[in-house]
């Protein structure tokens, strides 16, 4: 009987290949694909394709359920390894910061502009309102951030914060705190985008209001210049990161509200990747900002140097996103290289 069965013959002829693939996959699962020898790596896709063809054949000629299920699962496992993507951390990082991140930002430049506009709008509101009515300051700035500064502070007290001497040797801890705190907020900004982007817009706006209120406080004390020189060296990077995270969140919200020709689920998945890339990049920005804020601002008190750093960081980010972000012409034969 068995000799007349085509399904039995199929198995007899191909089983060795399946078993070989199975052993390779088991080893790749345990120790990673990189541990396979070059010989074995060469065999893997061949065996994979042969197993797939066996599956197609088995589906049309075999009624041995165990055999068909085995082949289905074998092919599924092989698929994960063959098409799973296998970059190392180093390669992933390099690729991310040289291509993915700047390009994504460049692609989303309109959303970034909207996000920045929201913050600037908030800033103007906070600034003008506080300038007219200093009491509003209490409503705009939470006590924790004020560091004791309020409309009743004297000019000297306000000035003192700007040129504070570092207390003891707590600089690294301070920088670490700033970085983790800000980055955490950036991550939150991304997730809030799921709620149609409304909380993100609010967050951006209120952040601007807060900064504006501070600015007004210092303008009233005739310290406009020193204040912005205190904020901007790290602020350029930090505010940029906040704006970018906000743009990512807004984009997520937009993908839900206006999915275009995709279904909402697919649209969310597509934009989710883009938005996540931006937020991950922003974590690096927050790290830079944290270091500048934690060390540089505390240690360097000369206005000229502060100005230079602010301008330099602004230029740097402009060039980074402007040059690396702009897509170059890709020739058809270079695609995927």
């Amino acid at each position, binding site marked *: *009987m*068995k000799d*007349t*069965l*085509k*399904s*039995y013959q199929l*198995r007899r002829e191909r089983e060795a290949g*399946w*078993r070989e693939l199975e052993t390779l996959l088991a080893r790749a699962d345990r120790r990673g694909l990189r541990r396979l020898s070059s010989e074995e790596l060469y065999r893997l896709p061949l065996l994979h*394709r042969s197993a*797939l063809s066996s*599956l197609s054949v088995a589906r*049309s*000629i075999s*009624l*041995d*359920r*165990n*055999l068909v299920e*085995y082949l*289905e*699962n*074998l*092919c*599924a496992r092989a698929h*994960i390894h063959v*098409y*799973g*993507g*296998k970059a190392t*951390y180093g390669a992933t990082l390099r690729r991310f910061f040289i291509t*993915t991140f700047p390009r994504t930002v460049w692609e989303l430049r309109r959303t970034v502009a909207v996000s920045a506009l929201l913050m600037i709008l908030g800033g103007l509101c906070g600034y003008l309102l506080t300038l007219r009515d200093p009491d509003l300051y209490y409503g705009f700035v939470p006590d924790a951030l004020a560091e004791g500064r309020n409309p009743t502070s004297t000019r000297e007290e306000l000035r003192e914060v700007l040129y504070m001497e570092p207390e003891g*040797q*707590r600089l*690294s*801890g301070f*920088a*670490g705190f700033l*970085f*983790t705190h800000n980055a*955490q907020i950036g*991550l*939150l900004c*991304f*997730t*809030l985008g*799921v709620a149609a982007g409304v909380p993100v817009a609010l967050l951006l706006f209120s952040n601007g209001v807060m900064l504006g209120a501070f600015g007004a406080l210092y303008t009233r004390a005739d310290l406009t210049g020193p204040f912005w020189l205190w904020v901007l060296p790290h602020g350029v990077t930090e505010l940029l990161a906040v704006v970018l995270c906000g743009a990512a969140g807004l984009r*997520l919200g937009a993908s839900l509200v206006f999915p275009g020709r995709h279904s909402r689920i697919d649209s*969310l*998945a*597509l934009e*989710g*990747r*883009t*938005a*996540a*890339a931006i*937020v*991950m990049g922003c974590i690096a920005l927050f790290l830079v900002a944290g270091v500048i804020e934690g060390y540089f601002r505390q240690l360097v008190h000369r206005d000229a140097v502060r100005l230079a750093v602010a301008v330099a960081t602004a230029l740097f980010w402009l060039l980074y996103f402007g040059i690396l972000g702009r897509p170059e012409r890709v020739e058809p034969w270079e695609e995927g290289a």
Partner: protein
Amino acid sequence: MSAVLPTGAVSQTAAVSGTGAMSQAGKVLHREGPELELISPEHVRLRFAVADLGSRALALMMDLGIQLGCVVALIVALSALFVLGGDLGLALFLILFFVVRNFYFTLFELRWHGRTPGKRALGLRVVARDGGPLTADLVFARNLTRELETFLPLSALMAPGTLLDGAPGWANLATFLWIVALTLLPLFNRLRARLGDLLAGTVVIFEPKTRLFDDLVGETRAMEADAQYTFTPGELDIYGIHELQVLEDLLRRPYTPANRELYREVARRILRKIGRDPQEEVEPARFLHGFYSAQRARLEGKMLFGVRRERKVR
């Protein structure tokens, strides 16, 4: 199952053997539940079993436990540095804590291709919904939302007061509803996706298990049966593919004394169905193997000519 097997006999064996009869041998590869179906680049349809929420919750708990262990280890290791007065220790702690809190899952899933220690222990894996590579941005996207999905509800459970301190009642209620909606999200879609999965377009699946048993047709019992029992085409045209595979499940069970009674009962039923004398004296195991081979040969032969008979005639 009931197509060939008498239902009473099934539950009886299940009780006798102590383990669920359904989970034995032949059923091992087959998982119930939703599936992710995709077409591979070679144009072959592949199926992945979507992981159930119980396994995922367990994996999550294991991972959270490991995270907690990491943080405790960090505190112990760096407290030495901290006591010595360097604030480098504090900075290091803050940054490492940040990394463990936010990137534990990301780093593992990147390195192990969609697996974390917890997922590995439970045989789970993250794959892209479209079957493409699990690239870094997918892994980022699906893990960025953990803050909102895991840590926020956890802190809400452990210390409800810290969340939205002093906020009005309606805000608390809204937050509560939001958290509940997020937590229950996987229950309301076919692929059991949580928010992060939706953002990234990923699915958590069971690792496909591969076990190939011997072909029943090639076994000695089947060969002995070939010589002893013959079936006419008319007798073989009664059952369909479904019944054949239920019989396959039965034959893959170990031939224990308990199962022997079941074999006898099934043989008697088949005899009656194909129009023979049910009291005919047959050796049940050999008869069933022979019938299986003959039936499969018949159905596969028909399939080659484009006729797929799924179920029995009557």
